[in-house]
């Protein structure tokens, strides 16, 4: 390859190594479905059930939401490009704004672009594996909305969420999956 081309375009070099590795991971999820050759850009999507079976996602309580947020149809069927999208956003190199955007989508269970109380309750239940009593859950949700809601509409819009995230430096290190 190095003999034929002297200039490497960005498209080719864009994390070439990582892309190759991701492709092999994608392929091993469903070897009979995923072609090895991607030059023709085949339209192949893997269902949610296969993707959340990956060891990196298997035990994560938010695995369904993560995969759904990156799928185009909202049902969790990922094409290879969306698969790469997912792991690139969850990697170390992704900028904070991008991570905040997708974190917001992941926690937005009813997909209405607001983190309302129900979303927060679901988030909490998954975080704590239902160890908190319903009263405690209620209290935490209220306090969270109170702390983070800036414009007083009792839900967290993206701006509220981003503002809160910007004050938490740990977000970058915790919202990260190694692959």
């Amino acid at each position: 390859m190095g003999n034929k081309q002297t200039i490497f375009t960005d498209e080719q070099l864009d994390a070439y190594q990582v892309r190759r590795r991701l492709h092999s991971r994608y392929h091993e999820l469903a070897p009979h479905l995923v072609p090895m050759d991607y030059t023709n850009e085949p339209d192949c999507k893997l269902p949610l059930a296969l993707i959340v079976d990956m060891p990196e996602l298997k035990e994560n309580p938010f695995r369904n939401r993560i995969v759904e947020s990156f799928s185009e149809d909202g049902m969790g069927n990922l094409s290879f490009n969306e698969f790469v999208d997912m792991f690139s956003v969850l990697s170390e190199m992704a900028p904070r704004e991008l991570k905040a955007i997708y974190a917001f989508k992941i926690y937005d269970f009813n997909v209405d672009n607001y983190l309302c109380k129900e979303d927060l309750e679901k988030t909490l239940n998954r975080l704590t594996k239902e160890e908190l009593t319903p009263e405690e859950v209620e209290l935490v949700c209220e306090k969270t909305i109170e702390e983070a809601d800036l414009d007083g509409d009792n839900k967290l819009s993206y701006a509220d969420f981003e503002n809160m995230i910007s004050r938490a430096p740990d977000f970058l290190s915790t919202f990260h999956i190694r692959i």
Partner: protein
Amino acid sequence: MAHGGSFTVNVCEKDSDDERTGESGPSQKSSLLFKEPAFNVQEYPEAIQMGTFIEHLDSSDSESTSSSERSKESLNSKPRCSLQRNNWSAATKRVLSSMPSRTTGLHSSAGIAMKARRTPAELPPRTPSHDSLHTPRVTQEGTIRPDLEEVDGTKYLVGSRCAESSKEQLVSDLRDLSVSEGMRKLRAMPLSLVDKREIRKCSFSPAARNSLNRNLFCNNLLSTYISRMWRHCTFTGHPIVSFLKLWNSSLKKLSGRYGTGVLSYFLFLRTILFINLLLFTITCLFLVIPQAIHPPPTDSRLNSFTGIELLTGTGYLSQSLMFYGYYSNVTIEMNQLAAHSAVTHMVPYCIPTAYFFTITISFFIICIVLVYSMSKSFGKSFQVFKSTGDLSEKVFCSWDFKVIKRPSIRLQSEKISTQLKEQLSELTSGEEESSPMQRCCNLVIHAVAWLICLASIFLSAGGVYFLSNSRSLVVAIEAYTKQHFGPHHKNLHLLFTSAVVSGFNLLLPGIFNLCAWMEKHKSPSTRVYVSIFRNLLLKISIIGVLCYHWLGKIAEIQDHQASECWENFVGQELYRLLLMDFIFTVLYTFLGEFIWRLFSQIILKKNRKPVFDIARNVLELIYGQTLTWLGVLLAPLLPAVQIAKLFVLFYMKKSSLMLNCQASKKPWRATQMTTLFITLLCFPSFLGAAVAVVYTVWMIKPSSGCGPFRNVASMFESGKLWAERMKDSQQILSWLIRAYYTFIDNPLFLFLPTGIFLLVIYFHTQVVDGQRKIIRRLEKQIENEGKDKKFLITQLQYLYEENNPDSSH
């Protein structure tokens, strides 16, 4: 911040615009009410006016549940009912849809935040063309609530025609920016990689794209070439690059089980390994290899090699490349083969000059590397404000996505729920006013703990000093070792001091842990900081005492005109300290962790494994690195020893962790701790070592019996002599040297850059202060506008319902 400023300006304008359009809807009577100046809530007597509306509002809504203590909540509980209605009037819907929260900057980087997320029911039928499926993704449509979509044709954000135009808008926006700025913005946008590639193709010219590199700061030819070479390396899987990703799979396994905190220790270890590798490469290339090719004459008496020399550094090793004394002070002639002929051309290579410049330049390079990594890490963890939202932060930022093993995930859930419960109890019960008696008690306990710690530090430092200085003790130990280990192992007594130092380093943190357990700190982070501080104090005092002792010993040797090589002596001491530290760490890992686990499982019958103490282990790493930096001047191969030690340490700690330890239940703020550790590595550790080395080079007279500087008054002088020699022969160098004498050697000129730096720092702190004030004001503004919005919408809705009573509910 400017971005935020323009945001709020738009809000005001939009609000006022839509409010006026809304006026035309309701009847004339209502316009009287609208004339009230409602834009600035602070002036508006909410309480009075709200009262007149509350009686009209539908009180059947039972959704007001707020139990918060803020008065605003009680005021808004009734209007909130109207905000939650489902059949808004057309005017209200228009107002709502044009709210900034729904139309936030179509093309600002935060704006495209709301990518299309439609439920399957709302998806348009799949068209055959690929394009029309792609383009909706670039739109802003997700901000429209489902109920709004059905109302009127104001789906101005939904639909492929508008999506196309928004995409073109984005491309033209990106073209306006500089290439690197535009790339950075594009990276932060939530579009798929395919879309980003298309947009990048359209926005940036091919030449700019080809030369662009994420790491490119300037566009000159050299950096383009370097970036291209780097790309070539990564493309072909060059071994160096794969080495930089050393231990990646192990790190992944560790983070999967123990989380980000423990991972940060191992990443820190890897960073230190790379720094040592850099140091070793430089000294090896320029110092060790030339000297190895031309070995100087050695004393044949010391040629016997028994294993003990590896530990003590004396005997055979003292006449090896390891220590300063081996290096000659001559100019060796190196053979340089000319390209075309067989005649070898002799190149003079002056060892003393090489020695001096290698050490100084490598220190300089490491200084730059450390400061750069510190600033990068600081940038990640810097917050303009301390976070006040502890609970919200815990809910959203505490889940560590790296953890993948089921028991660790269970542990993590337990950890989070415990923390949440603790915080809730703190909130509900409030700050308990401890009685003066309790406070006094707490103070006494703190004082006692600090007294114990400081006393133990003082005693250990004193013990080390006494041990090194007391002649009778040394003689007694020497006699003891000679008696028990035989005459061949006569140098074993030298190990005694190092062993004692390492012993203190191991025992005293245990005492500190006990004291910390006794005290009750308000927050776990305070506890961690206090423990780090105590450990740091211990290590600084021990190293300080040792340095002082060495200085005294050096002065003594020089006074007595002994031809003994003090440099070798100090180098050997440092070597022994490093080795003993390693041996004791190995022993502690086996005894401390492994046997403790067996003990607690078999005898205490508890299934609780010990927890990996991150702070203590990191400080051990920093201590070892300080010793290396102190010793590299006098023992150039010491970085190699440190590299070997770090390698073994990694695998040992990893296996010990997997076998013996469990994940911690206490929260660990990884980003801030990493910043702290890099700062500690830079400031007390590197700075102290650099100061010591500079002092040695500048002030202390090298011994006349050994080493490359045996015939000069100070090591620094050899550099000066070289400069004198070069001044006449080379033009460029003479300029450099002249510049050096004018600028760096001249104290007046040093004040100027220092003054400028201080000014720049002051300027930046003022800017940050100003930004803080602006943020506060903007937050207040957002709050006020939220209140405005609520009020106006309830007004609108109320008036609409008043006029059309049949359409309400």
